């Protein structure tokens, strides 16, 4: 299989994964802004995490920051799919930043709050998938189009 074809498959998969993450983040952001965190799918653990002080940074819900990051990943994947070389670099950059932040959030859930939120775990799984895609991506030099 050619590198171009692999790029198309991987960036398409990344775009779809980012869209799923974006939808989830928008849902969680709305929950945070409306105070519906309490419902949390009937899970007390989820409530403990999303209702905690760690669920906001400077008053902004972490989910809203996640939505921005997922949108960034989707945009970069789309542009990369159309041959924009710089988009690949930004794609990798955002994904690795999200990957690092996910570890921090997993640490907080496991060792600080002692509770896991299923939405957060789902988001972590999407980010691990995106990181896997970033690792599996063939080197950029194999593509001819450079913009």
């Amino acid at each position: 299989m050619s590198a171009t074809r692999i790029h198309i498959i991987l960036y398409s998969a990344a775009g779809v994964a980012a869209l799923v993450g974006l939808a989830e983040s928008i849902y969680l952001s709305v929950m945070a802004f409306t105070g519906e965190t309490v419902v949390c799918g009937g899970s007390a653990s989820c409530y403990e995490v999303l209702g905690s002080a760690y669920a906001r940074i400077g008053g902004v819900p972490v989910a809203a920051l996640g939505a921005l990051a997922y949108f960034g990943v989707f945009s970069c994947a789309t542009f990369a799919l159309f041959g924009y070389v710089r988009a690949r670099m930004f794609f990798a950059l955002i994904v690795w930043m999200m990957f690092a932040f996910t570890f921090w959030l997993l640490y907080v859930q496991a060792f600080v709050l002692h509770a896991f939120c299923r939405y957060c775990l789902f988001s972590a799984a999407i980010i691990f998938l995106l990181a896997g895609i970033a690792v599996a991506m063939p080197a950029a030099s194999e593509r001819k189009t450079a913009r």
Partner: protein
Amino acid sequence: MKRYLPFIIVVAVALLAVGSGAMLYRAKRPATLTMSGKGGEPKHVRGNPKASVTLEEFGDFQCPPCGRIAPEIKKLEEDYQSQLRVVFRHLPLATHVHAQAAACAAEAASMQDRFWEMHDLLYKEQAVWSKSEDSRALFQAYAGMIGLDLGRFKRDIDSEEVKARIAADQRQAASLGVTNTPTFFLNNRAVDPASINPEKLRSLVDAELKEKKNPSG
């Protein structure tokens, strides 16, 4: 056309994301709740009965945000003294396994006129009893700590009267459309969930006091 396609896709997704988020927010945002004054006099009031500002809470003793805001409310009471009175109503949520038992413990304490002592202790010790296998044993220990008659406390905690008091608050919450905790009403007007933090609450109380002093302004 192909040159513009990625821009079109990205802009379309952005619009879709913002639009769906806005629609979801409109569907889920709490209606502007106001208390009608009906539904019975509140049982648990702390502070000056004639205070110009009343902060009423629908709370769940096991809800972490309720636990976090409780000491802040107490600070407000200390700072505003006779200008502020605080009302507590029960809304134990089904998602919290010990919330109903905690509400019963608080009501059993109320039967001996120690509701607020138990209220403060339950929030202070929330992290302990909410993860305990035997929360009732801890509630009994707390009853001892605040000087309750333990025999009476053990009887009252399972009594129908205690359950009826909690159920009355839950009915009041349902009639107002309150489903989340903590939900606050400031002089009968619901406080936006985003404003449930010490700074915003303080500014809202200040605004209410200002309004009372200068009704026309």
